């Protein structure tokens, strides 16, 4: 990028140097100054309508909208000058005159930009002495409900549907203060990516029906994670309350998903909240599965595997670390491993290059292949008579019990246990699911991304890499893995594709595996 011309300017007394064409608002971000704004969003075209980002530029006759004004050489910008503050105070008052101020019953409360900026820069009290405008709440279809009275008409939602989803659905209807967001005749927000308008809305006007009235924003615990619902690997934030996932939201990563996340990913979290979990290790004793402590269960599993060939049926929603250790387990016994990826329809987001809800509805099919598992629609076809079948997680539920009957013994390393396996398994080792442990996924383009623990695992269930590591130890190999990082570094040392990567070096944006095509996802 050496050929990009840089311009130098001063913002709030701080020197900034940004590429030519950068807006003042973005330039200010680079020096740690947040210029209040509503209609501007880095993932959308500039509208310049909220007039909140007005700043004073020396020698300019009028206040400049910083989102729509390019940074220029030698500019001196005052964000918090009296003139600029006065203008923004005026905008805030205008935005509030028809706003119902029903924060106590508004889902957005606590993460509302109207609240935040009003606290920062607004008037202590309003001067409106006339009745407020009223409009009813409207169902926008999909997961979206529109609370008209709270709307500040920033048009982010309109621009998202027009310019990113390429499916014009919303528009501004009416003029003057009668204006509101409306759907086009016969259209609604059932687009696969329409849920993003909820995140884009800076106020409580567009709300998710799914998370409506479930929690206050300040009650939520948040953890950075990666969406496990397809192979795109969108970065997300898992928001929990009382150890329950309440909401999944996108986390920006311009290499993968920019600012967005599809509705399928966003709403598919109930399987991670399941209550029918295996909470303790189970060992078959006298024909009955009975709870046992970890030592006994691991020893029982090791002895079931002793001298036998293991066939590992792995879930493509397990982390790279766990899959790697499972492949070690298989190869150690001379066995093999296979996996199956559930399929669905592809749904691209056309405004962002290489971003789609992928056909592969699992996070880590690529990782499973890289560590040596075979992808197959009939994964159990490779199961030899008398092999020990090691079933690792969710795949279990979809298995044909008849195929599994060929196995000499069945060991389950899983989060749940369906009825038939209750009769068939000799050992059940309970593990955490992907929001209860940390680890990495490899997305379809080969980007290795970390996810972090968002909630506690039930009972005495342990992280999956930890359990498989312990099982390997019980079988006589190594000394277990205490952290996901240790497991990853072992993976990086053993599998060439992961060579050169280190767990700590992945950071929050991930890194590409060796030899993967230059860019993974998004525009990059």
């Amino acid at each position, binding site marked *: 990028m050496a050929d990009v011309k840089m311009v130098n300017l001063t913002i709030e007394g701080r020197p900034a140097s940004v590429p030519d064409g950068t807006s003042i608002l973005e330039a200010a971000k680079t020096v740690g100054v947040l210029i209040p704004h509503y209609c501007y969003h880095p993932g959308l075209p*500039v*509208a*310049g*309508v*909220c*007039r*909140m980002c*007005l700043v004073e530029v020396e020698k300019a006759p*009028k*206040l400049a*909208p910083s989102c*729509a004004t390019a940074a220029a050489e030698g500019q001196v910008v005052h964000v918090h000058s009296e003139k600029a503050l006065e*203008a923004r105070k*005026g*905008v805030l*008052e*205008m*935005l*509030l*005159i*028809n*706003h119902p*101020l029903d924060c106590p019953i508004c889902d957005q409360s606590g993460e509302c930009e109207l609240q935040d900026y009003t606290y920062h820069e607004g008037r202590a*009290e*309003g*001067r*409106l*002495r*006339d*009745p*407020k*405008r009223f409009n009813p709440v409207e169902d926008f279809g999909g997961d979206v409900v529109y609370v008209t009275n709270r709307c*500040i*008409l920033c*048009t982010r939602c309109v621009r998202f549907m027009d310019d990113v989803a390429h499916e014009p659905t919303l*528009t*501004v209807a*009416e*003029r*003057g*203060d*009668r*204006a509101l967001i409306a759907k086009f005749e016969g259209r609604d927000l059932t687009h696969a990516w329409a849920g993003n308008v909820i995140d884009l809305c800076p106020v409580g006007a567009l709300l998710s029906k799914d998370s409506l009235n479930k929690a206050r924003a300040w009650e939520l615990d948040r953890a950075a994670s990666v969406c496990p619902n397809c192979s795109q690997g969108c970065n997300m934030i898992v928001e929990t309350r009382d150890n329950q996932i309440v909401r999944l939201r996108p986390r920006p990563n311009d290499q993968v998903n920019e600012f967005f996340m599809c509705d399928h990913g966003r709403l598919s979290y109930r399987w991670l909240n399941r209550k029918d979990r295996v909470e303790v290790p189970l060992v078959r004793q006298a024909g009955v599965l009975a709870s046992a402590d970890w030592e006994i269960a691991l020893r029982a599993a090791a002895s079931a595997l002793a001298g036998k060939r293991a066939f590992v049926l792995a879930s493509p929603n397990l982390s790279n670390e766990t899959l790697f250790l499972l492949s070690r387990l298989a190869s150690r016994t001379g066995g093999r491993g296979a996996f199956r990826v559930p399929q669905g329809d592809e749904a691209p987001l056309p405004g962002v290059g290489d971003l789609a809800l992928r056909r592969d509805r699992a996070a880590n099919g690529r990782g499973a292949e890289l560590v040596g598992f075979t992808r197959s629609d009939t994964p159990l076809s490779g199961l030899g008579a008398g092999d020990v079948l090691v079933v690792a997680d969710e795949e279990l539920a979809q298995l044909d019990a008849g195929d599994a009957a060929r196995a000499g013994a069945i060991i389950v390393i899983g989060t749940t246990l369906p009825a038939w396996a209750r009769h068939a398994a000799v050992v059940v080792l309970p593990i955490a699911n992907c929001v209860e442990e940390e680890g990495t996924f490899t997305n379809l383009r080969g980007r290795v991304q970390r996810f972090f623990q968002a909630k506690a695992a039930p009972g005495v269930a342990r992280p999956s890499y930890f359990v498989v590591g312990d099982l390997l130890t019980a079988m006589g190999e190594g000394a277990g893995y205490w952290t996901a990082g240790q497991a990853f570094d072992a993976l990086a040392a053993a599998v060439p594709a992961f060579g050169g990567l280190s767990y700590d070096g992945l950071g929050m944006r991930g890194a590409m595996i060796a030899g993967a095509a230059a860019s993974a996802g998004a525009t990059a």
Partner: protein
Amino acid sequence: MKPGDGKPHYLCCNADESEPGTFKDREIMRWTPHALVEGCAIGAYAIGAEVAYVYIRGEYTEPIERMNAACREAYAAGILGTNAMGTGKTVHVYVHKGAGAYICGEETALMNSLEGRRGNPRIKPPFPAVAGLFGQPTTINNVETLAAVPHILVNGAEWYKKFGRPDNPKSTGTKLFSVCGNIRKPGNYEVTLGFPFKDFLYDLCGGPLPGREFRAIIPGGISVPIQTREEAENSPMDYEGFVANGTMLGSGGVIVIDDAQNLVKQIARAARFFAHESCAQCTQCREGTAWSTRILERIVAGEGSAEDLDTLLDIGENMTGKTICVLSDSCATPIASGIHKFRGDFEALIKKKTVHMVPAQVA
């Protein structure tokens, strides 16, 4: 606009004459549509455009018919078409009927409307000369400007420049003024720029109605500051003359208000117009025009309070110079100038109130 830049150029004629008190373009299109068609053809030729659009206000049914007929005649006579006037150049003039929005008279909103979008003003820069209609370099002029072109070409620039005040070489030529309100002879008048406004009002237009006196004059459509009678009587009718006397020439729509009128009611009516026509993009305009209207109408209804005037002025301050286009400023201007120059009218209404009604503060 660069000639030969490889891009198509466009000419737009702004005939969306919607400024209250202004009706001069209507008469040009009704009575001399050929002057406008010629002006468009010459203008298009001058800027290297092959297409000119005449965007006419939707309510102007008769002018639209006249313009369409004039265009048909021009095509038949070979003045327009693929070989205009035998030059081998292509000049097309299309008449487009607006759908009745004041804001579509703003040049970039007009272009959005022509493109089939919602008539919202665009953020500038880029200006139309760089990226206008369909994103291409565009020149946009008013009907009166383009209709004057043929006459200037025929008679020469020197002829046109000799109209005007000798002491003000900046404003020359003639200007149409539409006169309405409380005056004896309303109508359209063409005067040379710099003509004394006092003579115009009292001689040409016949002065006030019997037994009345002029009180306030709005010389350029309701978007410009209101003048007191004294200010108006001192004004020469040109751009600089009006600015020197506290207002602007604007669209040339002269609205005369005499001493029998409730001035506050007139201002409230003007504000209601802007509140109705705001495109709803910018916050200050969308909310400010409506809020001002509510306060003004409350004052007219006898329920105003003393702090309302300061609130109005402060709202006006917030609405001025902070938005994409000037509709917001246009609403604030008559209100602010009205309060500054006729504060007594407002205070009388506020004092007169019989019901003390201040609802609980809710915002």
